[in-house]
């Protein structure tokens, strides 16, 4: 399982793959740049990086990273990534996707990956619109916004991802904005270093179909970028995190930064502890003899 540390730091050139197919001005470019930065900084061995995604504009991510990657089906990146993470503890598993992939078609998996506390990092590029299919309402589209599937304006209350993540038991929950590079870098780095299920909800503007959606969170466009004051908070309080989530919903753009952070045994640790225990009990018996013993009990 052990692999030699890379001789030298990965260069951006080594990490770049296909030219991104995103539209000019798309927020996802910044996420890619930020990801390259952090992977370089943390000196993750090149072959140990795995990029996982579902379907959507942001889910094209793996093609743009020169690393092992898997572009999967819509909404199921998390269970797939769970399979990778649990069976290969030596890998660094990164999941990328959008709001439709993560909060709509894959919503159930978000809840369960979070409660299981699977060891992986998940970046949701939330643009509040379906971009790949050209402007339909998404699960985070604000009420009243006109789209091709809501010609009279969206009528369904949008999901509150932060509240859902808190309720589901995710152990690292952060929120950032692609226009705030430094902050985004910091959130990604902390997410990667967090042992367990770490999510960074990343507001990433769709320049084509929902331009200006997040100007309210960009000081250069006259908005405000307020960051949670962690020193004044109990970071392990779900009640405080839930209050933040509600405030964000009521007064967009709300707060950025880490909403919640705690340590809980990961699914990986719990499963591996069982395996270690089971292996210890049968130590000295070959796998074949173990099955022969099972046959003996079937007579």
């Amino acid at each position, binding site marked *: 399982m052990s*692999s030699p540390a890379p001789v030298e730091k990965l260069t951006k050139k*080594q990490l770049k*793959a*296909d030219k991104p197919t995103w539209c000019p001005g798309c927020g996802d470019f910044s996420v890619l740049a930020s990801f390259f930065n952090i992977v370089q900084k943390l000196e993750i061995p*090149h*072959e*140990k*990086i*795995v*990029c*996982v995604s579902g379907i959507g504009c942001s889910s094209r991510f*793996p*093609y743009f990273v*020169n*690393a*092992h*990657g*898997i*572009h*999967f*089906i819509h909404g*199921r990146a*998390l*269970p*797939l*990534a*769970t*399979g*990778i993470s*649990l*069976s*290969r503890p*030596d*890998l660094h598993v990164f999941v990328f996707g959008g709001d439709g992939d993560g909060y709509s078609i894959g919503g*159930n*998996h978000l*809840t*369960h990956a979070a409660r299981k506390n699977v060891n992986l990092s998940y970046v949701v590029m939330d643009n509040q619109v379906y971009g790949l299919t050209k402007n339909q309402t998404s699960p985070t589209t604000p009420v009243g916004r006109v789209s091709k599937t809501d010609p009279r304006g969206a009528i369904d209350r949008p999901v509150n991802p932060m509240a859902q993540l808190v309720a589901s038991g995710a152990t690292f929950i952060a929120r950032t904005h692609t226009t705030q590079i430094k902050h985004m870098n910091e959130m990604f780095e902390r997410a990667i270093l967090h042992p367990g299920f770490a999510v960074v909800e990343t507001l990433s503007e769709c320049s084509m179909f929902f331009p200006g959606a997040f100007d309210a969170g960009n000081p250069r466009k006259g908005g405000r970028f307020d960051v949670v004051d962690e020193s004044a908070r109990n970071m392990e309080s779900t009640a405080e995190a839930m209050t933040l989530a509600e405030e964000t919903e009521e007064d967009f753009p709300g707060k950025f930064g880490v909403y919640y952070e705690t340590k809980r045994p990961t699914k990986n640790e719990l*499963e591996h502890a*069982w*395996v270690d*225990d*089971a*292996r210890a*009990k*049968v130590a000295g018996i070959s*796998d*074949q003899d*173990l*099955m*022969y013993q*099972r*046959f003996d*009990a*079937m*007579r």
Partner: protein
Amino acid sequence: MGMQVSIISMANSTASPVPDTLKNAVIRLAGYSQDGIQSVGGFLAQLAGSTAKEVMTYMTIPATISGGASIFQVHLGSGEVLHPGDDADMLVAFYQDSYDAHLASLRDGGVCFYDSDQVDEIKEERGIRHIGVPFTSATIEALGGSAKNRGKNIFVLGLLCAVYELDREKMSGIIAKKFGGKSEGVLRNAMLAFDAGYAWPVTSIAHMPMAPGESKGKKRISADGNTMIALGLIAGGCRYGAAYPITPWTSIMEILRSEFPKYGGSFIQCEDELAAVCMAIGMSYSGHLAVTGSSGPGLALKSEALGYASMAELPLVVVNVQRGGPSTGLPTSVEQSDLMQAIYGSHGDAPRVVLAPRSVKDCFYTALRACRIAREYSTPVIILSDQSIATRIEAFTQPDLEKWWEEPVLDTAERDEDFKPYPLDKLTRHSPPGSPSKAGKYPVVTGLEHDEWGHPSGNPQNHAAMTAKRREKLVQLSHSLPPPSFHGDTDGDLLFVGWGSTYGPVKEATERLRQKGHKVGCMHIRNIHPLRAGLGDIFGRYRHVLVPEMNDSGVYGYGQLATLLRAKLCDPRIQSLNKVEGLGFRVVELVDEAEKILAV
């Protein structure tokens, strides 16, 4: 009842009023599921297995949480036992309604033991010998008056051991093994009930000793099909998997959840069927061949991800333990109606391999082969079992693990400069994450149509070439498959073509028809998709080809396998015999249909 089949072959009954020994006995236990009828059947089956007798069981379980009418049928034999038995030689009825519902399943002149505390009305008919034994009160008495309706199953087990002169010592040992782990009181009560049943004075009939089985000289085990699939997967080198519970698949995941860790792996219970197949694909992508499984409705939910595995060319083993459908259907009954779903159920052209075990023993080897094929061809492989094989118990020689064992290998060796994830000129061999790349270029595994390097490509020629690549590996496999098993006449009047759990009844029917002077053969197809190349030549040697299947004849009049065979071979002699009652074929039904065809 019509024809009486000589399942019970007593030694010349006119010469001697008391039979010497029985070669076969079909015992049907009828009661409620909470009475522990299944465990009695299981004990009998295990005993038969350990005394070199053949055995096959059949049971119905109600789909209710607890309780409901339940039966367990055991066919014990000193020779080959191929099916659970058409008509019972003995009925053990625990209640009036179980008596009423199952008396018809008893052959003419059969024996009926009934609980005289529960059954009041007896129908004297067809020479059936009734013997009332107060199972309930006798058990309570044996256990010292505190039994509360428990233990009468073990009392009955003792009774049956005495009547059939089965090995009392071995049976005591099996009971001790079963209850030994529980409290001392439980084991003591079980032994008290067993001894009371064994000592019960049954004077109205003579004992019917079972002939000793021919010693097979090898180590024999008895198990159900789901257990053998689970063990076959382990022997096939599968160490990881994920699933969601659904009847009758569930017991496989229960076993794997406990067994995989002992072999260094993990089996994960997921939030739903979709997560399960996706998680398993993630494990396979990681370089560990993984398994997921389900029953019909769950396989439908997995369809999209199966299409992905086919497109991305990832190895995966998928078990589908079929039950009656569609929808929730008959969750605890047998049917073979998922064949088309298994072969074609997805979107787009998504080739995959489908294998079907024909017996409990075969479950082990099928699972192992599924692992080998999945790895070698980097493809999803579906194991199409069914409720009947899943739950019934058979006795057989244990697999030789020297011959049947695959050590799992995680191949993260450095890939060469010229590595391509999807080469057009050879089989795909993925480079799992963690594998360094000499060229410094890492692959993306994808469900988008892709070129040889895994880049998305909508190029028309490329899509055609890649579709052919995915198809051709199955064509290649079809030439390397072993021929289907064959029995009976190699040419003549009629060929049965069976698949899955119909194997026993079809083989038995073939024998009976041959004894009647017909020239009949039977072929059993275990490689459902792709079919082995060249099957048509065999069909041509018979006047008729009959395909019995437990699925509907459909709008066009043919069962699911028959439809495929007709499409592939364009042979108008291929006819269907369909049954959709949630029950397996009786031998007599197959014989009758064949004779009807042969009479024309």
